[in-house]
């Protein structure tokens, strides 16, 4: 458990991994600014931040899942289903406040479904969520009936595209979500239990940690965060397309792994995930602007995942770094 306590004592305390991610972000910005004349302008920076909103929220949940030794590859389509629910309410001229509740509610419900299969059914998370991914994709198709949900009224947009004290609402919500997840992870028994399960499920069980409760809750939390992400998605784009969320799960997993959360569990970094999301979006946006077709995006993301993990594994093998590993 000592390893659990040591990483990240303050809300914004940064370790080496997070500093190097920040440097990588800045470096990427500099390189793209030189490579493309369209890159360095305020409008583009806003675009990158805007595109990061949903992934930041989904990434926070994915951090918890991966730190626990779990995974959810269906999470992008969960966002799609929540977005459809929100869109249907708005389309029927429902109150935008009802729509605000609908996203997290649908997310939580689907989180319960996933948890029921994976946690209660004791199915490996990757296989269970892959099966659910297929089911959810068909559900999206069946609900949309082959058409986009478009031309939604702007009531929700008016509500969320405002600023409070000069700060955009999405930034506020993300900061709040970050703070809550951080507190849950570092200041409550739940967080300790989660990381202990990630470290060793067997030891966690033997020390009397309520395995099922903690794991179930984590899937529900991830679902709620995804539901909030769906709310911002609908508010921003005011439509729901067929392919909604098809790359979100991969992007989220990549961002979390970039951020230094160990998929072997027991070690996680929320700030790393935030920086990982930004780096990923900066890379995707920058590559697009220097003329790399968007078809290459999943390749880049996949290579990032394997590269980072491979690098970590290779550097862990050197005897020199055993000292560093003991500290991390």
């Amino acid at each position, binding site marked *: 458990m000592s390893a659990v306590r040591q990483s990240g004592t303050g809300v914004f305390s940064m370790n080496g991994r997070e500093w190097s991610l920040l440097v990588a972000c800045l470096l990427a910005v500099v390189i793209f600014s030189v490579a493309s004349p369209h890159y360095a302008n305020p409008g583009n920076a806003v675009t990158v931040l805007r595109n990061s909103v949903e992934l930041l929220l989904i990434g926070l949940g994915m951090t918890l899942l991966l730190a626990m030794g779990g*995974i959810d*590859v269906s999470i992008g389509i969960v966002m799609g289903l929540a977005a459809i629910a929100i869109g249907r309410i708005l389309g029927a001229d429902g109150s935008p406040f009802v729509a605000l509740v609908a996203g997290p509610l649908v997310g939580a419900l689907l989180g319960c479904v996933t948890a029921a*299969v994976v946690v209660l*059914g*004791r*199915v*490996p998370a*990757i*296989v*269970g969520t*892959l*099966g*659910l*991914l*297929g*089911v959810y*994709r*068909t*559900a999206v*198709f*069946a609900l949309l009936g082959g058409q986009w949900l478009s031309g939604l009224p702007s009531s929700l947009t008016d509500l969320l595209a405002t600023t409070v004290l000069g700060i955009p609402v999405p930034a506020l919500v993300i900061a709040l979500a970050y703070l809550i997840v951080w507190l849950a992870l570092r200041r409550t028994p739940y967080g300790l239990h989660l990381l202990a399960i990630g470290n060793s499920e067997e030891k966690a069980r033997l020390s009397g940690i309520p395995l099922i409760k903690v794991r179930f809750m984590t899937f529900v939390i991830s679902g709620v965060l995804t539901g909030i992400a769906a709310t911002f998605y609908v508010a921003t784009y005011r439509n729901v397309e067929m392919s909604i969320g098809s790359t979100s799960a*991969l992007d989220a*997993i990549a961002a979390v*792994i970039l951020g230094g959360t160990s*998929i*072997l569990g027991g070690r996680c970094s929320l700030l790393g995930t935030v920086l990982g999301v930004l780096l990923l979006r900066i890379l995707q946006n920058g590559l697009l602007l220097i003329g790399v*077709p968007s*078809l*290459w*995006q*999943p*390749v880049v*993301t*996949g*290579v990032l*995942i*394997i590269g980072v*993990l*491979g690098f970590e*594994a*290779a550097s862990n093998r050197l005897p020199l770094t055993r000292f560093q590993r003991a500290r991390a």
Partner: protein
Amino acid sequence: MRTLRNLQGPALTLALLCALWLIVIVGLLALKPSVFNLGTVTTILQFSTILALVGLGQGMVILAGGTGIDLSVGGAVSLSAIIAMLSLKLGLPPVLLPAVCILAGAALGALNGLLVNGLALLPFIATLGTFFVYSGVALAVTGGAAQSGVPGWLLVWGRGVIAGIPVPFLTLAIPCFALAGLALMATAWGRWIYAMGFNERSARLVGIPVDRVRFILYALSGALAGAAGLVSLAWLGSGRPNIGQNLELESLTAAMLGGIAITGGRGGVGGVFAAVLLLVTLKTGLLQLNINTVWQVGIVGALLVFVLLADRLSQRWRS
């Protein structure tokens, strides 16, 4: 009831699969009597060839345990077919096309094996990464366009039918399954795979070369994916960059439905073969009933979840 309880392992799986298969066929016939004719049977077997080859590799990787899984199979099928077609355009003698296709698949599988063995990455995350790389490269290199120009003699093989049975099914799927089944039952390597899957630690202690066997199985899964890519080339007459779509889900479902335990060490390839036929019959039947293909992925996914839950329940029931 007593006889059903006495049936164990592979025999029980096969009996259940046959029962399910009959239910599917009777159900489809009731909905639309003209569903099955000789043409449909040929189509089912043709589709089965691709899924059978991929499912065989997937099944063997899972059987060897160590949380083994190969999510990259679909990407490997697409990419090996595209590599073969592109190297044909770059002046490769057409005679070598089959060899290049299978070798490309084997190389992609060997990369998975390296990541899992050499770098000790978790199989699901390593192959998830390579899945997006392989399928992404196949799409990006071609811009999504099908690559035509498959030599005529290959089409003769790929589209040939003997007594209603497609030639690739006869000459590739059946021999591969027979060899794999024989290897698992009657060779030391086969017993090693079961031993590894059952208890990796003791397998290492008795001196089984666990790492080497696992590497070979990942490479084999890739080679079988390459063979599936070859079948798709020879049948469709062009290399399609998205031909492997959803194969990771379908091959997993086939392996699980075929009675292979997700934790490894239990199951056999006979069950996988039966499960592949069942899945493809179901899919083809739905197609004949004019049900949109998008429903297929949902039904296959639901089946996967159902089989996994049923497996857990039956374990609890027995103990």
